[in-house]
């Protein structure tokens, strides 16, 4: 009798693997699970560094169950912004950060100018200048475009 035939007779009828559903879930949700894992790592590190705080105390402080905190630390919880904010306040540290984008860079370094031709001189207005197609109203400062 081949080993294959013997295996067939001893394969479990009581345990059914859910590996496929779980693998497909991981692959489909890879991006937010990565966010969740990164938040979990930061909570883990903050708890590690704070002698007065642990999972149980954090749960009690937030009115959450210790099991839920434990689940969050696994890094597979789809946390709401509200939950992230509550955890952040309780731990006294930011858990997420936002990358710089065009409106967060220094105004003097901004290259997002509106060019306005006035006679032969080009001037630039700051990005928050209110303008319309035919009417430009500088609200804050007007810069000499050539010098900008």
């Amino acid at each position, binding site marked *: *009798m*081949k*080993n*294959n*035939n*013997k*295996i*067939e007779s*001893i*394969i*479990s009828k*009581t*345990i*059914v*693997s*859910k*590996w*496929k559903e*779980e*693998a*497909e879930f*991981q*692959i489909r949700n*890879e991006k937010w*699970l*990565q966010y*969740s*894992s990164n938040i*979990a*790592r930061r909570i*883990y590190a903050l708890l590690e560094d704070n002698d007065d705080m642990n999972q149980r105390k954090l749960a009690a402080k937030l009115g959450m169950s210790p099991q839920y905190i*434990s689940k969050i*630390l*696994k*890094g*597979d919880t789809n946390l709401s912004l509200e939950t992230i904010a509550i955890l952040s306040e309780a731990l006294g540290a930011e858990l997420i950060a936002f990358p710089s984008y065009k409106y967060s860079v220094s105004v003097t370094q901004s290259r997002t100018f509106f060019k306005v031709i006035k006679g032969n001189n080009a001037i630039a207005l700051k990005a928050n200048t209110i303008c319309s197609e035919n009417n430009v109203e500088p609200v804050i400062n007007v810069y000499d475009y050539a010098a900008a």
Partner: protein
Amino acid sequence: MQIVSIFVKDDSQSEGLHAFSFDDEIEEFSRIFKLWRDTKYIQDYLNQNIENLESGYYKYSSIDEVIDDIRNQAISLQKLILQYAENGFNTKGDNLQMLFKPLDNRESSIPLHQETKAKPDKKEYKKPIIRLYAIRIDANTFILTGGLIKLTERMDQCPYGIIELDKIKQAKSFLKQQGIKFEEDLDNYYDL
């Protein structure tokens, strides 16, 4: 101890990938991948094995980088296994033996009843850090015994590796009791 089907060839009940369940609740395939996506488990594991991590066998610059790598490699390995499950695995050059290689790197082929390991694709990861372990019991038929975040060169250089080696022994002993014949019985295992 039970054997659970992971996936089998369409016209077969046995040819394919199976996994042991040592606790009669969850099979090793699901259990291992569950651990590899559990951030706290990985952080605890790395903290407990920090000396191995710092030994320089792997060139990671931070714990964060290792966690990302473990998670990414686990997803890559799952994708690979899903491909086998969905597209078949019995065509020339695309059988399960392409995925499961001899546990001992010094062997170039897999004899029947050999201990084997599977890693993420080497094209994607030059030095994979995760391993699945399985016993080959027949052509294209493997039974998974466990897996490891391997931080040392040899399995027997860390307690978790020793546990995995012990599970392979337990699994072989169970198979023998069930009448599965082994042409050989290796006492020494290598995973280089």
